[in-house]
């Protein structure tokens, strides 16, 4: 790709994006427009995958809502994504967690990273805050 487009994409891309990966549980603050009013709705779930890079990067978040699996794909740089918060870092060995789709209950969960006693960035941040 040409440098011109790369620079253009960098100038349009969101800065300071939360560093998250598949398996993490995140809260996505989504702007919803109703008429001429807009409000923010929080969508929480497990990150199933991140794909693409630069301006075109997207991520998929899965949650089970009233027994129905819901997957939403967000472009990271879309203006409707207000912000992304980390709830818990997950410990997974895959980049794409498609195996969650067939699972129910406990099998559909992802182990938290700090169960292994590894100091995660999220844990460090809370420790510093205390």
């Amino acid at each position, binding site marked *: 790709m*040409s440098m*011109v*487009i790369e620079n*253009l994409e960098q100038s349009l891309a969101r800065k300071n994006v939360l560093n998250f990966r598949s398996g993490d549980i995140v809260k996505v603050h989504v*702007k919803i*427009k109703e008429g001429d009013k807009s409000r923010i709705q929080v969508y929480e779930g497990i990150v199933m995958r991140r794909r693409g890079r630069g*301006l*075109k990067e997207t991520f998929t978040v899965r949650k089970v809502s009233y027994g129905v699996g819901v997957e939403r794909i967000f472009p990271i740089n*879309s203006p409707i994504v207000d912000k992304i918060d980390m709830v818990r870092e997950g410990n997974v060995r895959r980049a794409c967690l498609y195996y969650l789709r067939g699972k129910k209950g406990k099998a559909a969960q992802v182990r938290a990273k700090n169960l292994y006693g590894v100091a995660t960035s999220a844990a460090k941040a809370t420790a510093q805050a205390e």
Partner: protein
Amino acid sequence: MTDSILARKIGMTQVYADDGSCIPVTVLKAGPCIVVNEKTQEKDGYAAVQIGLVEKEPKNLVKPLAGYFKQQNVAPVRVLREIKPKSPEKYAIGTKVTVEQIFNPGDRVNVIGTSKGKGFAGGVKRHGFRGGPATHGSMFHRAPGSIGSSSYPSRVYKGQRLPGHMGHERVTVENLKVVDVLKNKDLILIRGAVPGTVGSLVIINKMS
């Protein structure tokens, strides 16, 4: 009578609108152009303005052209094209034409370029013939089929669509929307695709 600028295609990407919808855009390096010559009704029989795209200077300039640029007192350019602007009196020789002078976001434009060459293409690709079934014992796949009647007229009608060279021809794409104009960078973002390869020359005409 349209305001135009010369540009080179850089590539495609996407941008987001405020409502979150994703807009596919072509990025073009448009101008700056320099006015090289004026054609007038009295002298040439038609009114036009000759502009050149200011980029890397030509490496080996033939002497007649070098003399021409010297005579016009303009730095040599690689590409010269004639345009017919709405008010030619604004285009004095040596004037710089930039993209932000002509285009604003939201404008509609026509883009003229040279399409990508496809080589010798068959009827299915070139004219959209349907072709035949691939399997079930079919022996008719992508051939053109019948090209006319027999003893009368005993010839193939002119203009009959047949396989042949496809692409690498002048193509105009009409009614494209200008998404953004980046000042000082000479970049213009146009919604949708534009003919030609990356780096090829296109002419952007403002729709009146």
